[in-house]
């Protein structure tokens, strides 16, 4: 028999889907639904949660208590997803998220991880020299500010709830969501009002 790994990938995928359907393990409709969910996940989802937490204290409390429930409350499907933990920055404490072992990432709320998140350099330096790494992103923390690097090693996924930037008084929730970037929710950057 020919080596499976040398088969044309499209044919292999079709064959696998057919077998899964024939054995009633997963239907084509369920696969299509999951692909649609995965494609819909993007940093805009997490940004909506951050903006809501900035404007609604009850939502902020829910988000810090149970990130997955807060995501569901924002209409983001979390079925089959790992638990989501949310790390709240304060004026005295900043958080930075990394997965040193692989590329664990809160995909349900942030989408696919950016390429650098998976790089060996980011993974090593985030734990070994986090302030040096942050400085290269243009994020210089005041010396009085503590930094906690969160290494995502097991069953939780983590996102950062950054501080609401100055100069956003009177912004609507949608305006706030528009200024929250992917890196702000990983902790490599801080939200800025002019973004």
């Amino acid at each position, binding site marked *: 028999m020919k080596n499976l790994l040398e088969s044309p990938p499209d044919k292999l995928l079709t064959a696998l889907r057919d077998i899964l359907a024939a054995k009633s393990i997963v239907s084509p409709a369920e696969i299509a639904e999951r692909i649609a969910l995965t494609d819909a996940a993007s940093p805009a989802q997490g940004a909506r949660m951050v903006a809501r937490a900035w404007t609604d204290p009850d939502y902020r409390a829910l988000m810090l208590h149970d990130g997955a429930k807060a995501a569901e409350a924002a209409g983001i499907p979390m079925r089959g997803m790992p638990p989501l933990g949310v790390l709240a920055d304060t004026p005295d404490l900043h958080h930075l998220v990394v997965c040193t072992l692989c590329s664990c990432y809160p995909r349900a709320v942030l989408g696919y991880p950016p390429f650098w998140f998976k790089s060996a350099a980011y993974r090593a330096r985030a734990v070994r020299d*986090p302030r040096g790494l942050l400085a290269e992103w243009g994020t210089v923390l005041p010396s009085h500010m503590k930094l906690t690097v969160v290494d995502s090693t097991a069953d*939780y996924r983590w996102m950062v709830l950054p501080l609401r930037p100055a100069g956003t008084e009177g912004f609507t929730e949608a305006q706030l969501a528009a200024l929250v970037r992917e890196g702000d929710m990983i902790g490599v950057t801080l939200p800025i009002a002019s973004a």
Partner: protein
Amino acid sequence: MIAPGTHVRVRDDWPEARGPCHIRTPHYLRGHTGVVLRHLGDFPNPEDLAFRRPPAVLPLYHVRFAQTEIWGEGGDELLVEVFGPWLEVEKTA
């Protein structure tokens, strides 16, 4: 169950030197001391799941480590998920 505030040492164990394995405890923590922040929940052991063995359900803890304890320098902290069997209690809270 290990209570929050308990000082723990990550076992200085290297299963990867003994054969194929799947470990969620980063090498840089092994043998180092931290403080349990909280119990995150109980989860099937990935060391079993990776080999399709029926998994033991293990407590998972969020553990704080000072950078100085791990690297000998740096004033910041690391917060890492570690499964119970990897932790030895040094001093209770």
